[in-house]
């Protein structure tokens, strides 16, 4: 078995990137995720795998560097935290519009505004529902451990390239800053020029040769009928992603009478809540969405009939709960417990909220 190393979630992102064959990282420091770029700079992957690492002058610039790198079919990524992601939203909608694969890591902190550097999940609306203008989606993975942080880098790149779409790892300050054991997966080399041409040659900017027409990456189509057709193509792609790429897990949901829905670090906290509740004889289980887009709609829908109530727990004022209520569609009460602005809920207070709702 591979050696397990104690590291922060942020460090795991960096090692996951180097070891899955990432071609380039472009970023700008912001707490609580600066360890990603710091780790990359210490590891100097340009001397080993040839991966480029560059500190940009702003988040605006980093996301546009992703655009410039992704245009050429390279595996490129950035990481930031909430205020930085707000700045990147312009770039994200261009990347989505131009159908460019890339990875953005958001280690969420509390807002609005400059907010706090402490953990939060209050960018759910921004990231899952859009953020930038226009009808688009990013594929969103929500890690709950340092190992997830490591593994989701490769997973996110695979999804991004499979669908030519930006992917995001939507994490938070708890997962970014916490150290846990991480197993280093076997090293995957960066793609060779031939492999890149085979995978992306039909669209990527690899230089116009006499045997093909010039490739163009743009999100512009001035004619409404062309832009509508492009949007229809995007929507068809999103339906395909929704049909094929849902990831989720459950915890003691089989015989549960009450369901907690939670993701990321809050999911971890809620596991403790379930164990404590079951000791008191309350049959509780959890549905953990691992992909927030596509959302585990059918999976939640199927669990609703056996439940007496649902409790959504988030480090926000109530964002994902809107999706849970939409899917539950009035069949059972959907309650909400949230802490926000950088506060983290304890297992005890969540249990108390659960007991109050169901008594």
């Amino acid at each position: 078995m591979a050696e397990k190393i104690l590291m922060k979630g942020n460090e795991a992102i960096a090692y996951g990137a180097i070891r899955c064959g990432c071609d380039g990282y472009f970023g700008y420091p912001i707490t609580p995720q600066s360890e990603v770029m710091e780790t990359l700079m210490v590891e100097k992957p340009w001397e080993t795998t040839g991966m480029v690492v560059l500190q940009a002058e702003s988040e605006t610039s980093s996301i546009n560097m992703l655009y410039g790198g992704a245009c050429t079919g390279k595996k490129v990524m950035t990481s930031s935290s909430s205020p930085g992601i707000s700045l990147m939203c312009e770039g994200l909608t261009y990347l989505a519009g131009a159908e460019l694969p890339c990875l953005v890591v958001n280690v969420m902190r509390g807002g609005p505004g400059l907010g706090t550097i402490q953990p939060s999940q209050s960018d759910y609306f921004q990231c899952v529902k859009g953020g930038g203008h226009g009808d688009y989606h990013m594929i969103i993975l929500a890690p709950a451990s340092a190992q997830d942080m490591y593994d989701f880098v490769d997973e996110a790149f695979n999804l991004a390239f499979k669908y030519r779409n930006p992917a995001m790892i939507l994490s938070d300050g708890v997962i970014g800053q916490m150290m846990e054991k991480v197993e280093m997966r076997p090293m995957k080399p960066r793609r060779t020029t031939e492999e890149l041409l085979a995978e992306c040659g039909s669209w990527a900017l690899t230089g116009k040769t006499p045997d093909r027409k010039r490739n163009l990456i743009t999100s512009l189509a001035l004619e409404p009928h062309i832009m509508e057709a492009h949007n229809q193509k995007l929507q068809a792609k999103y339906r395909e992603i929704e049909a094929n790429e849902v990831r989720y897990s459950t915890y003691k949901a089989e015989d549960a009478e009450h369901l907690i829905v939670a993701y990321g670090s809050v999911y971890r906290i809620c596991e403790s809540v379930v164990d404590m509740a079951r000791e008191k004889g309350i049959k509780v289980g959890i549905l953990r969405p691992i992909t927030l887009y596509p959302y585990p709609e059918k999976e939640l829908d199927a669990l609703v009939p056996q439940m007496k109530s649902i409790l959504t727990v988030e480090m926000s004022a109530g964002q994902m709960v809107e999706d849970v209520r939409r899917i539950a569609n009035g069949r059972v009460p959907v309650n909400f417990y949230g802490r926000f602005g950088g506060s983290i809920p304890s297992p005890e207070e969540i249990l108390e909220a659960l007991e109050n709702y169901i008594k």
Partner: protein
Amino acid sequence: MDIKDIIKPENKVYGKTPLLTDAVMHYCPGCTHGVVHKIIAEVIEEMGIQDKTIGISPVGCAVLAYNYIDIDWEQSAHGRAPALATATKRLNPEKYVFTYQGDGDLASIGCGEVMHACNRGENIVIIFINNAIYGMTGGQMAPTTLLGQVTATTPYGRRADLNGYPMKITEIVAQLEGTCYVTRQSAQNPAAVRKAKKAIRKAFENSMMNKGTSFVEIVSTCNSGWKLTPVKANKWMEENMFPFYQLGDIKDR
């Protein structure tokens, strides 16, 4: 001489480079963009680097530059082309990468990106079209608009107390250690076109020598925005733009 004689191959004195596509340009008659596109296409053809060149188009009139030069293109968000070029070049050092940007795109909204790409000395070419006005959006003030110049947003002429001063971004960029070649050219007559072409070729050649960023400004006209005929626009440029935006190499190392 009969028309049939004129078009005989042996009488041909000038041919369009095949690097320019047959698409009909959307630029206004008299616009400088078409001339600069031709110069770039010729340089790429003469250097034999069609398969190694990636262009980056801006937001503004030249957003559709990708329709006219037969190479791979990426189209940037407003002002961000130097950031795109940075990553494109760093990840593909064997490629010639150039941005093509107007004064609104480069000197206003994209001021940060161009400064830092130049300061890092990215091995790219930046072509800067300065016509002292926003053409695409209908003739509003640009950072490079001259004092007293009438635009849609300075109907009384640009006033320093209200709008600040025309910005010599090219001189600013020349101060940065990362730039190796900074020059200001024009393209209003054959002599100017020849000089501009030499400058652009040099800039492309620099980008493979690991010397830093090459920056070529072309002082240009916008006869539609300036509300002048093409001939009068050229004259106005020579009389008003050239004294302030002086032509020639600012830095060459």
